[in-house]
């Protein structure tokens, strides 16, 4: 492990690692000492008030516990950060503007491929030992891309559907049932237009459920063709969708609002606790139900990563470690705070810590869970998006 770390540190990021020797010494108290007084610019999507508040809380803890200042740099799209780091590295800027970034999936695979990430660091973080690497394989496999210690797991996500139970008595628990539901309730079901992240995920879910050979989706596409069965399903679904499938909402957030308004009957989210969270906030009614497909929905993990040119690298590591701590994870898990499922193996924790995770089922929690499915290989994404646009992109 150490060798490998040293290897990457000198070969990939050598330019940016004047003190690489110290960094890989795995001397955690040294890292903490170095981190003291640093300002960590944490670039994180800021579209959610509870999430922002949670980050604010964590920043306060960092200040009081470690003397580290955490600044939440609010962004709308992690792609901004990928580009900024790429540009800075290309311009030879050593003291980059990003110290830590909230990331996963395509953005991670790009940064990894372009060698824009510092590390490996995550698996040597003291709190990493609590991570449920066996039960939650996506903590080491981000969208079929090996994590290799380049990002530290933060939270779990799984495609989840929700509706007002008062209007939807029998939630559709696979794509076939969704089609039947749409036929029975024309114009009240839809999904966000790709390349919106949730829209693309919905398409991937369709592909996984419709695939004749699901394994093919975990290998690189061979003939640049999307399996035709996916489109025959969408062809059947679209006429019964909102606006007869000629228009699609722009985001998952928009769909959530439309569900709250009653314009749509079914919403979707990557955070299984979001519906419960929204019930608590009053946006959705208390009769809200959430479910996952019987044979599973796509699940993944979101992470934090340190760019190769981060200025406050030690501070970022200490912060990443804190975010993995049972206390921080338990608070994040709390539906009243954020409701983001933990990456930890709760059973590995002390009884006291375990108790912090225990929470009564709140209205809107997932009542019909399904297993998590691995993301198809990332190289499918541009292919699906392009094919979808060609087929449905002009109304």
């Amino acid at each position, binding site marked *: 492990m150490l060798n490998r770390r040293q290897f990457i540190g000198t070969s990939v990021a050598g330019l940016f690692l004047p003190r690489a020797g110290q960094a890989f010494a795995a001397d955690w108290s040294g890292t903490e000492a170095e981190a003291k007084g640093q300002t960590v*610019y944490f*670039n994180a*999507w*800021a*579209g*959610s*008030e509870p999430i922002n508040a949670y980050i604010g809380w964590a920043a306060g803890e960092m200040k009081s516990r470690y003397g580290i200042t955490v600044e939440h*740099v*609010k*962004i*709308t*799209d992690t*792609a*901004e950060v*990928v*580009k*900024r780091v*790429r*540009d*800075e590295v290309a*311009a030879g*800027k050593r003291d980059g*503007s*990003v110290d830590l970034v909230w990331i996963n999936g*395509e*953005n991670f695979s*790009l940064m990894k491929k372009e060698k824009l990430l510092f590390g490996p660091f995550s698996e040597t973080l003291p709190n990493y030992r609590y991570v449920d690497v066996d039960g939650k394989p996506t903590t080491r496999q981000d969208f079929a891309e090996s994590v290799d210690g380049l990002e530290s797991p933060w939270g779990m996500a799984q495609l989840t559907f929700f509706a007002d139970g008062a209007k939807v008595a029998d939630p559709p628990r696979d794509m076939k049932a969704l089609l039947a539901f749409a036929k029975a309730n024309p*114009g*009240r079901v839809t999904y966000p*237009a790709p*390349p919106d992240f949730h829209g693309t995920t919905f398409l991937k879910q369709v592909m996984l459920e419709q695939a004749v050979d699901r394994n093919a989706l975990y290998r690189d596409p061979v003939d640049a063709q999307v399996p035709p069965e996916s489109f025959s399903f969408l062809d059947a679904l679209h006429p019964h969708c*909102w*606006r007869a499938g*000629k*228009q*699609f*909402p*722009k*985001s*998952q*957030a*928009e769909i*959530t*609002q*439309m569900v*709250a*308004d*009653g*314009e749509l009957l079914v919403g979707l989210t990557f955070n299984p606790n979001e519906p419960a969270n929204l019930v608590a*906030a*009053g*946006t959705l*009614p208390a009769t809200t139900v959430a479910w996952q497909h019987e044979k599973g929905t796509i699940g993944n993990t979101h992470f934090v990563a340190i760019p190769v040119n981060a200025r406050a690298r030690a501070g970022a590591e200490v912060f990443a470690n804190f975010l993995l701590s049972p206390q921080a994870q338990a608070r994040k898990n709390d539906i009243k705070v954020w409701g983001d499922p933990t990456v930890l193996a709760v059973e590995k924790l002390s009884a006291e810590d375990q108790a912090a995770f225990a929470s009564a089922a709140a209205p809107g929690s997932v009542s019909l869970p399904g297993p998590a499915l691995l993301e198809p290989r990332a190289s499918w994404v541009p292919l699906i998006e*392009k094919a979808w*646009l*060609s087929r*449905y*992109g*002009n*109304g």
Partner: protein
Amino acid sequence: MRTLATLPLAVVLLLPLLASLLFIMPGVADLDSFRALAEHPQFWGALALSLATGLTSTAVSLVLALVMIFAARGKNLSSRAGLFLAVPHVSFAIGLAFLIMPAGLLARAVALAAGWTMPPQWVTTQDPWGLALTVALVLKETPFLVWTFANLLAREDLAAGFAGQRAVARSLGHGEASTFLRVIVPQLLPQALGPLIAVLAYGMTVVDMALVIGPTQPPTLAQLAWTGLSDAESATAARGAAGVLVLCAVVAAILAAASVVLKCSRPHLHRFYAASPRPGEGLGGAAQLLWPALLAVYVAVAAVMLLQSAAAQWPFPDLLPNVSTLRAWTHLLSDPRPVMTSVVLALSTTACAIAATVIWLELAPRAMDRVMTMCALTAVTVPMLLIALGEYRAFLALDLTGTAVALWTAHAVPVCAYVFLLLARPYRAYGTQWAAVAAGLQQGRARFLWRVKWPMLKGPMWAAAAVGFAVSVGQYVPAQLAAAGRFSTLPMEAVTLSSGGNRPLLAVYGIALMALPLGAFLFAARAGRSRWSTP
């Protein structure tokens, strides 16, 4: 001395702009990105949609604005139109959507009467023809043009001439409508060329409004370009940049085509001017209703946003939220820093822009105006996204990204451009006789400026300042790019929060974004009022 006077404006506007254009070029110059763009399945549809929404909204806004000016019968609408101007485009689009969407206030009113329990399947927003987007643009651009025309008509150097010409034309037997069309409009439009181009360019390149209320299948070309630009993949981003360049080229082509059409239609136009007197009134009472109708839409938009800002739960078809909360307001007020940053930025950039522009206009050689006008027009018409991207790359090369200097400069560029465009004409048109009079009275230049010239020009100067302030407050991209998001400004907060779609927060920040410029416009209207005008 005279060339030295060009320095301030050159430093805050010309230099960053040139640097920006210089740095943006290499990234998009390759043919591959254009090919990728042309092969994008939605490209042609998106281009057609952009043309339709941009051209229609510009033409309709122009006609409506002229009708409103005509219907006002010489009453000065500028301060009232200024209030509409203060409403940021995106806030307005959000409010309008709250009003007309299938679960919006209008549908709820109908639902109560018709007994609906679910929102209707109306195609009122996100319609495939971009009509909702066009309507939103028209409602937003019409007051801007009314304001432009009203300011021109009220200009002290032009007003007397227009009044006399109007009296002559009517004494010759031309009715109000004929006088307006043949005498006033042909002289007004060339003066308003800059604002008209800005309206067209805005309509063609607007992203935020299109995201709120425009279609997706296909989206407008601006949206398509923006989606590309925001992609992490370099090739996709380059395709997006190519899209922006195509948009710029399309705007330029439209302008070129318009000038050719105008040239060809010159004989017809002149025959029209020289037609025999027509005493008819022309427009009926409907024209009088346009202004109140526009006002009503804005009031409704503001009202529905206020309702939304406090609505925790607002199920269909209730006309009022059934659970209200001040959480969103508390959120805004709990951290005053973004508001303070925005205000300080707006005040300092505007003050600097006014000073630099006045120094330029007072001292710089007149021959150089053309260069600066072109430069300012470029800054106003080229999508802000592209300029900000270029600036960001320039700052990157200077190792200035994420600094206050970068943040300030990126805000100052559009502010200076607008201030210069608005101030240059009235300032240059200021009669030389006044200086001669003052010199004759043995008054020094400074005293002349302070006591005579600036007080006489205070109307346009305050108006330019108000617009500068509003432009600065509305800037999102520079804070995100050049300042690496390290300085939280009001639009930064608003945009990042809006990605989560929380409606009360969206409404609160929309209102806040509206309130700051509104204050500036109210203040400017008061401060800039002629001493002799009746309140």
